[in-house]
């Protein structure tokens, strides 16, 4: 299951170690997560549903779906997809009992900063790089490395020189991290678990690896918590082997573990198309890409890349069911009519051992919702969204959003939004020379990016977000 050779990536595996899964000794490498090591060892069932005890497997791979909760060294409900495996670790099925041993004693630390940034992906890092030129910045991220979802993007980015076009996502992650680390404090393995308004902005955060609880006091907070993958309703959608497309990218491109031997992808947006190509690069077969819409949603150039490798794309098709005994063994797809109903007799049975869902993302609003910033449902933006203005500030003063949290879009636009949020937040603390000119430049860059065909939806989303923001806030706040 491990990838040894790859055209784009070098997997630098750490020291060989061993851990125990339900008493069985399993080989792993330092630097990989528990879930990745289990997958490499062929363990596909990670947990069970609470009520019906249905088996649950790997799904999102980034700590957002709870499919991989297990008991680790006696502590239940550990997200094994973002927890690094350690030598001698004891991993067991979650038994839903409270732990016998007392919760480990935690250290408490207090941190004060000008600007706290939650999430170290493209938006968060760009905000940090911008703001730290003028202010004292703290980045908090629950993962063990910075870069967000850029760390699994092996393709070259589009855009212009300014947005690092032609550079692969993995390289952009390194560039941003290096730049951000110059002037910012960084807390990794640290999840923000709560926001409190104490007359100032206050965050509670936990580093579960080192057992530290942080109390963070900040003048401004920028939330860049990204998004989570959508589920799709079909028979057998909870079989282990039905994965989120992004989860597969993480497993394969970050940890060098194949999801299976032969898969199908549901959704021909950019994520689905890119994933198909990445699977081929990892030496995994792709039977087909299935898309419910009558036309391909992602870039033509991505589609052309997978087509000339011989992968069919079935538009106006969807998945009817996944089947298999305890794991995916195949899928039935069928054609859709104009009313989105399956056409009888059009079914195709496809043998595969995994299914990837690339059916869109939903902004991860759980934290931002705690701040009291107004949340509103905007379909074009991907669902519930924190209303914000053109400076990325929400209806709650001093609370900002950027990137996918602020509308499902591209990493390129996330980086520009991060810059805008960082600049505006820093200027609100202490006036920056030429602020107007600088922020206008970023806004123009965003505007240009959203002018084409693929900018129509995000542009409409942003218009609605801002319209409702100004309805809520009343007249335009001065910058």
């Amino acid at each position, binding site marked *: 299951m491990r990838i040894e050779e790859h055209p*784009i990536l070098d997997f630098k595996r750490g020291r060989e170690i061993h851990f125990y899964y339900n008493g069985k000794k399993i080989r792993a490498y330092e630097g990989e997560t528990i879930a990745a090591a289990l997958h490499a060892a062929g363990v596909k069932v990670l947990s069970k549903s609470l009520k019906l005890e249905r088996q649950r497997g790997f799904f999102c791979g980034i700590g957002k779906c709870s499919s991989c909760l297990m008991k680790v060294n006696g502590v239940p409900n550990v997200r094994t997809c973002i927890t690094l495996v350690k030598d001698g670790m004891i991993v067991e099925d979650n038994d839903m009992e409270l732990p016998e041993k007392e919760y480990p004693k935690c250290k408490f630390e207090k941190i004060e900063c000008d600007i706290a940034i939650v999430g170290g992906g493209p938006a968060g890092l760009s905000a940090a790089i911008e703001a730290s030129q003028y202010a004292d910045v703290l980045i908090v991220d629950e993962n063990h490395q910075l870069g967000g979802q850029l760390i699994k993007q092996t393709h070259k980015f589009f855009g212009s020189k300014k947005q690092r076009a032609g550079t692969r996502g993995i390289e952009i992650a390194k560039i941003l991290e290096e730049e951000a680390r110059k002037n910012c404090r960084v807390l990794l393995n640290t999840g923000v678990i709560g926001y409190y308004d104490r007359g100032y902005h206050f965050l509670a955060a936990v580093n579960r690896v080192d057992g530290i609880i942080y109390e963070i006091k900040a003048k401004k907070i920028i939330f860049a918590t990204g998004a989570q993958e959508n589920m799709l309703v079909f028979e057998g959608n909870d079989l282990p082997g039905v994965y989120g497309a992004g989860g597969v990218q993480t497993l394969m491109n970050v940890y060098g573990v194949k999801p299976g031997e032969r898969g199908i992808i549901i959704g021909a947006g950019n994520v689905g198309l890119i994933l198909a190509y990445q699977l081929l690069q990892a030496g995994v077969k792709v039977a087909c890409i299935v898309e419910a819409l009558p036309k391909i949603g992602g870039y033509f150039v991505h589609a052309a890349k997978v087509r000339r490798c011989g992968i069919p794309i079935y538009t106006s098709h969807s998945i009817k069911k996944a089947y298999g005994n305890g794991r995916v063994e195949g899928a039935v797809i069928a054609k859709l009519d104009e009313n989105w109903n399956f056409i009888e007799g059009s079914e195709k049975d496809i043998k595969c051992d995994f299914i990837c869902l690339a059916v869109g993302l939903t902004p991860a609003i759980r934290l931002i919702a705690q701040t009291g910033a107004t949340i509103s449902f905007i379909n074009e933006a991907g669902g519930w969204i924190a209303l914000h203005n053109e400076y990325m500030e929400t209806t709650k003063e001093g609370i900002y959003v950027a990137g996918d949290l602020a509308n499902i879009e591209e990493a390129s636009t996330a980086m520009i939004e991060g810059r805008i949020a960082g600049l505006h937040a820093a200027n609100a603390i202490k006036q920056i020379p030429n602020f107007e000119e600088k922020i206008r430049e970023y806004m123009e860059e965003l505007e240009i990016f959203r002018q084409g065909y693929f900018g129509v939806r995000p542009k409409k989303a942003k218009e609605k977000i801002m319209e409702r923001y100004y309805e809520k806030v009343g007249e335009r706040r001065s910058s």
Partner: protein
Amino acid sequence: MKRWEREGVAELEDLNLPDEEHLKKGVAIIECIQEIPCNPCVDACPTKAISMENINALPEIDYDKCVGCGKCVEVCPGLAVFLVKVVDDAALITLPYEFLPLPEEESTVKALNREGKEICDAVVKKVKKGRTTIVTIELPKEYAMEARNIKV
């Protein structure tokens, strides 16, 4: 709706094709037929043969100015540019390749069309290794506008 929108396969009528004289010289065929915000090919071109009205517009190539250097093939994030040069009855096609194993020079590989179907044998003439490896293959002239990938 065009076929490429439904199936991801471009037809010759969707492309701006060079004439015979240009093909003898060797030019870049840009198979970028949908507006996306992207323009590295414009910056990469040393003879300013590629132009775009704005970052979302389609790239336009002036085949008189194109010298077939291949800079755009290397830089295109969409892997959508191919060099084609016709020499007598043969065509040399230069394409981006991102899979392992890499082909060996002078070996015979299968040429694939835009749907990934095998169309003929091709001889590998040049391999410029990189993360995106640039491969030049030689095949019969009639496949010059069909072959867009290889199977090693």
